[in-house]
């Protein structure tokens, strides 16, 4: 087998067009990876500038009433991960600015996609675009004639008569194509690590290694299947057209069809329905029998009883601060219920989509590529959760200052700048790969199963393949 692989490589190296194409791919991948990193760093820089600008405004607040400060609010800017330069995932689709303020939980807005005309339906020219679409196609071009041309020239019969097992021949030819894919993959990932050495920690390296593994598995599947078709079908044209049909189905057709189907299987509410349901729960109560005025009255009685007084005016604290915090907490429960429900639907959609990996390994690759790059939906939802938790902390801090800060009444009472400076800024921490990887088990397993299935397919059917 080793000898066949070496022979294949010798033959490949003799083809001048291939040498030029390899050079083109290596230079192209290096350039695309480099530009991806530059763009990512540029975006991170912009995000940092915006973050510092907003924080500076908060720290320079003049004396202000804490509740006014809750309305003044803050902003969370969605950061990009270092590996987004490989696979940007959903980052251009989702917004990148989230306003954090009292009373309301806002939507993340200002997506890059909404800031210009439509350009590309397959995303930016990042390494992932080349690694997912272009290189597998190139591997197909390399593999489609690998056995069928031997068949057409009659060499295949000769090789088998000389004692070469057909399955070994297919594996060897597929592996030689696969190694070529690996070479391009390693070039891309190597440049990524080399150019990003400062920003790469152990977690980043693990993510990179996992990306490498996932792409390597996919390339193995593509190379082996293309070689198998080449052996199985009568002519070069038949093997190429069949493998191209598979490629089109996997990469263009099925992801979109299945993506839309998941949406239909687990439909999300419309924004209007969602808004109305939240408003109703907030005003009528989560159970529908606890309207806001009754809740408000019950809360007042509870506080009066706690401080053993009869009137709000007799309270030793600012009642408004407590009331607003109670209302805020009720709003948090309403948010948890409705956004929790939406998140559940989104996760169900994702799970159904991941299952399409059973018949489409490309879906699994896409999912893990985004996932390990930290640019998929799970990472996005994690950002939203962390931002919401920060919002709750921020508003609680402000409401508690309002309640216990010294003024019993007075909306005009103001807290000094030192207090606002002491409020911590929002800091997003990307989930570790260990925590995030639980979501991608299905994808990795399905890719591995595909690799195993294609191996078995070659193993079990090789003997039945006609030599002419």
């Amino acid at each position: 087998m080793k000898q066949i692989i070496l022979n294949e490589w010798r033959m490949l190296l003799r083809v001048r067009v291939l040498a030029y194409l390899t050079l083109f791919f290596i230079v192209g991948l290096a350039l695309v990876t480099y530009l991806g990193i530059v763009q990512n760093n540029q975006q991170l820089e912009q995000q940092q500038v915006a973050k510092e600008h907003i924080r500076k405004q908060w720290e320079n607040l003049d004396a202000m009433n804490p509740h006014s400060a809750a309305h003044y609010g803050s902003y969370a800017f969605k950061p990009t991960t270092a590996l987004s330069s490989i696979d940007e995932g959903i980052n251009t689709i989702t917004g990148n600015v989230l306003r954090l303020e009292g009373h309301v939980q806002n939507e993340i807005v200002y997506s890059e996609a909404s800031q210009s005309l439509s350009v590309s339906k397959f995303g930016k020219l990042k390494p992932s675009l080349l690694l997912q679409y272009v290189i597998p196609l190139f591997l197909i071009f390399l593999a489609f004639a690998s056995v069928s041309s031997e068949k057409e020239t009659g060499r295949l019969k000769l090789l088998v008569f000389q004692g070469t097992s057909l399955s070994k021949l297919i594996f060897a030819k597929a592996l030689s194509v696969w190694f070529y894919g690996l070479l391009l993959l390693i070039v891309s990932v190597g440049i990524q690590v080399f150019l990003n050495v400062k920003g790469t920690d152990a977690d980043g390296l693990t993510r990179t290694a996992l990306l490498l593994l996932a792409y390597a598995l996919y390339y193995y599947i593509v190379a082996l299947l293309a070689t198998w078709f080449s052996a199985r079908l009568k002519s070069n044209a038949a093997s190429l057209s069949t493998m191209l049909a598979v490629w089109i189905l996997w990469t263009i057709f099925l992801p979109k069809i299945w993506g839309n189907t998941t949406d239909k299987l687990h439909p999300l509410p419309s924004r209007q329905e969602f808004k109305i349901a939240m408003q109703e729960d907030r005003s009528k109560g989560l159970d529908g029998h606890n309207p806001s005025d009754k809740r408000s009255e019950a809360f007042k009685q509870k506080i009066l009883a706690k401080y053993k007084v009869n009137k709000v005016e007799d309270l030793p604290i600012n009642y408004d601060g407590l009331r607003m915090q109670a209302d805020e907490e009720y709003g948090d429960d309403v948010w948890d219920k409705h956004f929790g429900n939406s998140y559940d639907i989104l996760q169900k959609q994702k799970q159904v989509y991941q299952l399409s990996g059973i018949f489409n390994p490309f879906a699994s690759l896409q999912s893990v590529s985004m996932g390990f790059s930290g640019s998929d939906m799970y990472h996005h939802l994690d950002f939203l959760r962390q931002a919401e938790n920060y919002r709750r902390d921020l508003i609680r801090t402000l409401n508690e200052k309002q309640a216990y800060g010294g003024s019993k009444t007075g909306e005009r009472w103001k807290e000094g700048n030192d207090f606002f400076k002491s409020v911590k800024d929002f800091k997003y921490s990307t989930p570790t790969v260990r925590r995030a990887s639980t979501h991608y088990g299905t994808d990795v397993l399905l890719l591995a199963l595909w690799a195993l299935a294609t191996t078995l397919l070659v193993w079990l059917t090789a003997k039945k393949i006609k030599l002419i």
Partner: protein
Amino acid sequence: MKQLFTIIQYEFRHFSRSPFKMVSLILFIGAAVYGLQNGYTLLKRQNTEIETIQAKNKETIAEVTGWYDAGKKGPDDKPWIDVTTPMRAIWYAPASVLKAPSSMMPFSIGQAEQFGYYKQVTNSSSTFDADLAEEIANPERLAIGTLDFSFVILYLLPVLAIILLFNIAGLERDLGFDQLIRVNHPSIRKWLFSRFAFYFLLLSGTLLILMLVYAVRTNVLPGTFILLYLLIVLYTLLWFVAFYFINHKGKGSANQAIKMVSLWLLFCVVIPGGIHQLASLKYPGNYMTDYLDASRDETYKLYDLSVDTVKQRLLAAYPDLARTQHAKDTAIDESIIGNSSSGLTNKLMKAAALTIENTNEDKNRFIRNTCWFNPVSWFQNRMNALCGTDYYAYRRYRADIQAVIDKKVELLLHDSWNKETVDKKRFMEYVSAFKNGK
């Protein structure tokens, strides 16, 4: 001419005996119907949503006019509300700015899923408010892309053309009887042209039938529909011309298939992706800090100004106010000035929004300037434009929103400063004025 028809006839036989090509065409038709239906469903969903909003607005109008008829000033449980004041009446007058979807939407969903299409406008609204976010959707599905009809045309149609055409003249070369063809047909170009013509007519005809079905369903005939169809025919023709030259100079089916797929990959994936990346490098995703400053920091600074300063600024920004009753008063009514501050914030927000729109326009100009070597994106945006789902359709919608905000502010300032008492008739004038700013 007779020879042309004979070749087309033979090509039909060849096509009908090729299960691979037949299945591909059936799959393509399936995808096209799926895409059309997706667009049609979105059109219906958006229309339903708009109807719900309009119905709710009608309820609000009936409720408020009921108060006027009953001589009430507002809801019983909210005694502080007085709808005879311009401030409250304008607050209650529904101002939903709606972007009714174009009936052409089934033919291209375009960027429709990236923008909101309804907004409840208040006098302190702006065109980049968070409530103008797009519909709730799975972001991964949006990133992967919706299978709409324009996707089928722009990306799958060339793929289908590759499947149908890759072995034309290639098979003959593979089997070594291409010389025989030359003997039978004096002009190999005409022979190739006739075979291509069959598939061109097949695809153009199939698409016309499919499109007509949905055009009748959405009642868009003829107008823009014809333009869209001609655009699609032109797009198909361009691919056919490119493939014709590949096949004319080809060296066999596999060789032709590789060249065709590479061409597809170059024009549909690599060039648009490259332009997208370059556009992002030149114009990175905007965090809109200017707008955030206007909506927060600058607005809060206004709140700290003295009543007298606010009044002077309002008079400077809206010179017409000088003729109003309150402008002539020697005493300043703090509540009028307080309620009018949205006049100043609106100016701030408009200036910030203009900066964003200008930056976006620079980016769009850059994208447009690359169209001569990025034709697929050009066709994509043309289709979106004809179907009212491109960036500019939503920019026009933002302009409509701004017009309603301006109208709200203008009426609020004018009527508050003239100390108008709002009755049912005036309230209905407000309602009518806020119908998309017209």
